């Protein structure tokens, strides 16, 4: 019976939660600053920092058997493999014959029969006035 669990101090839980909330605020704020391609990188960096905190402290992996951390890292590695290798195809199409890169029809056919709507989803006619009718069934 002599098997002791590590008990995380309360202060750690509270600090981590506060940091997570703070970082959530930061990520929203940063998204309104236009940094071009860096926006997504920063958003992902913040998300990954948050995720790391959750995994190490809330999910206790910092103190647990390192085997468990290995399993978790493995899941990320396989996900990484899946994403990377799929992108090797989708990003590099048309490298030799450019014709094969893009789709032929840019827009799915069902859009042709969709009426323009206002911001409430109600159909508008050419002059921009909305009809307040029941939503049409498009099928």
């Amino acid at each position: 019976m002599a098997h002791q669990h590590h008990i995380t101090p309360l202060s750690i839980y509270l600090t981590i939660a506060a940091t997570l909330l703070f970082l959530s605020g930061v990520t929203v704020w940063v998204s309104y600053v236009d940094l071009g391609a860096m926006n997504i990188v920063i958003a992902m960096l913040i998300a990954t920092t948050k995720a790391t905190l959750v995994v190490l402290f809330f999910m206790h992996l910092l103190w647990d058997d390192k085997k468990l951390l290995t399993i978790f890292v493995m899941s990320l590695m396989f996900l990484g493999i899946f994403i990377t290798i799929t992108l090797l195809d989708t990003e590099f199409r048309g490298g030799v014959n450019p014709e094969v890169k893009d789709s032929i029809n840019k827009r799915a056919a069902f859009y042709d029969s969709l009426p323009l709507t206002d911001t409430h989803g109600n159909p508008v006619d050419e002059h921009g006035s909305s009809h307040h009718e029941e939503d049409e069934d498009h099928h």
Partner: protein
Amino acid sequence: MSHDNSSPSFLQHHFHDVKQQYETAKLGMWAFILTEVLTFGGLFVAYVVYRSWYPEMFINANLLLDVNKGLLNTVVLITSSLTMALAIWAIQKKNKNLSLVMLILTFILAFMFLGIKYLEYSHKFEVGQLPGEYYSYMGPEIAHINNPHIFFSIYFMMTGLHGLHVAIGMGLIGWLIYATAKGNLHSEYYTPMEMIGIFWHLVDLIWIYLFPLFYLIG
């Protein structure tokens, strides 16, 4: 290894001791977390591929989402992660009542999360921002963009699968409340609470990525 003569009631017959049972459960749980990550992984791949193909479409469709509700849900979910962690901390400290309070709080927060999601969803259903062929929203800000229904397909699938996990988590937390109240879980044996806790933090973890990926595209 000798068998414990006074083996506790929660020790299953095929284990030597409590330590072995605990470590086995934890290993199994993490293997399950791995499968969860890869289940969501498939959808992440779809997201990455389509976002890199149609960045314009993603940016324009993203503007139709409600950042405030998304942020509110982030706060709710992080708080519920904290209360879940505190429930375990409390039971480790032999404080059953505090643990119960924390579990109930977690349950309520989970319910709030789903409530906010419901408000978001019902608004989108009303205006026709639906997944796939059911998409019909052609408002002025999006009408010139090709195939926004793909964004909404991925959005609904990912948040829907995540919401399903929240709902399952609520069921499990409900069971924890019952088991703790009955005294089946206590400072000597709270493995189920720890396992469900790990599951619940995973739900939080996935939302941490979903939030910026859908609501905060530049």
